[in-house]
């Protein structure tokens, strides 16, 4: 049982959802967009989230889209991670999202909820950061299309009343050589000690990280070091650590020293797998 009650709305269009949000704000309510609801319900139970009006996005056709339009793959924000895992249109995304939580929970967790949630791992954003995807965001001022690398800094930067409708990825990225590695401290499901996703495009290897710092990120400086063919794998990795955006996480999942040790091994494995062409 939740410690508070809320109203529940299931709009059938983007316009209806936005207008509803505005109306509820005018009524001095605290509306919240709702995808799978797994975070809203679990954190709500602990009083870490409060809302008195839920706007369930699952009735909006654009949010349920999944397929190609011209040369682009369109992914609706309310698709479950299970649907993405089973329909392997974007193999790196399927590989990354099939490691989030557990099979049954992935039936409920949505891709939009995973990217926009408060829980900082947001693992399924990694493939989109690597593939220069764009996001379609709807809000009171209309709909905007932005490069994810420009609007995702630690989290997706949304203005009041905005929500994520779709993520769009160009076809040419979908079949690029890739790998996603998730390391857990124990057990086969749940939060990562760290996750690294990697994609190779035109001979250059891209890397995105979750669980290393308190937010997911892609760092061009780290990538430049990791691609420096004049250095050995070990030196590339160790110099790339100088560009980590914040001190490495030190929490119950693992100490910062342990994380760096695992990160070094993981990057070494990825470089060998994906073909980093080590300097002799």
């Amino acid at each position, binding site marked *: *049982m939740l410690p508070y*009650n809320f109203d529940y*709305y*299931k709009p059938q269009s983007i316009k209806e959802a936005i207008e509803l949000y505005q109306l509820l704000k005018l009524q001095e309510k605290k509306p919240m967009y709702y995808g799978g609801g797994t975070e809203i*319900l679990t954190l709500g139970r602990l009083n870490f989230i409060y809302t008195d009006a839920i706007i369930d996005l699952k009735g909006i056709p654009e949010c349920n889209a999944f397929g190609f339009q011209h040369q682009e793959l369109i992914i609706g924000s309310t698709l479950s991670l299970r649907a993405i895992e089973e329909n392997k249109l974007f193999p790196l995304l399927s590989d990354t999202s099939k490691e989030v939580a557990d099979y*049954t929970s992935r039936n*409920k967790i949505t891709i939009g909820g995973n990217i926009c949630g408060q829980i900082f791992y947001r693992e399924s954003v990694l493939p989109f950061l690597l593939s220069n995807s764009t996001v379609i965001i709807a809000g009171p001022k209309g709909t905007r299309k932005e490069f994810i690398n420009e609007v995702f800094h630690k989290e997706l930067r949304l203005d009041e009343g905005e929500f994520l409708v779709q993520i769009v990825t160009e076809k040419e990225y979908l079949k690029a050589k890739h790998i996603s590695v998730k390391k857990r401290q124990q057990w086969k499901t*749940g939060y990562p000690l760290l996750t690294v996703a990697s994609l190779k495009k035109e001979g250059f290897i891209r890397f995105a990280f979750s669980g290393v710092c308190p937010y997911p990120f892609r760092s061009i400086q780290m990538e430049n070091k990791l691609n420096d063919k004049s250095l050995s794998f070990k030196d590339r990795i160790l110099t790339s650590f100088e560009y980590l955006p914040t001190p490495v996480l030190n929490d119950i999942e693992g100490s910062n020293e342990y994380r760096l040790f695992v990160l070094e091994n993981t990057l070494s494995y990825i470089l060998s797998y994906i073909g980093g062409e080590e300097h002799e």
Partner: protein
Amino acid sequence: MNSHSADRKVTIQLEINKEQYERDILASDILLDVLRDKIGLTGAKPGCLNGDCGACTVIMNKQPMKSCLMLAIEAIDSEILTIEGLKNTPIQRAFVEHFAFQCGYCTSGFIMICQALLLNDRNPSPEKIETWLSSNICRCTGYKEIEKAIYSVIELLNIKNQTNQ
């Protein structure tokens, strides 16, 4: 648009185990609580209430769902199956025959995930079995017995399949 207010009760219809139930609930009521407290189906168990343990697993439209992770309102227009709806299924017998439980608290959740898997795939790979079963946690048996139970049903289904051909 469907809308339901926090202040007043709403009447919803749910299809559970092929029967229709009409109940007054609050929009914020969790499916697990409605099943147990308003409908009297107590087979789905409250465990972690956090999506981790799987004790509350039910089957919705042939897929396993953690009923602590959803609102009852979200279950409208779905076919819900709870452990009470499984009568004489091979997986129940297999749990007994392979000693796949001790205290039994997690058992209905495990039976539901096994049943959901078999509904989707009569011959799942070992990897798939492991992926699906890792949605559930048992505190007191070895997982081997649970795996043995599901493998025995897969064998049974395949023998039946072959004899029917």
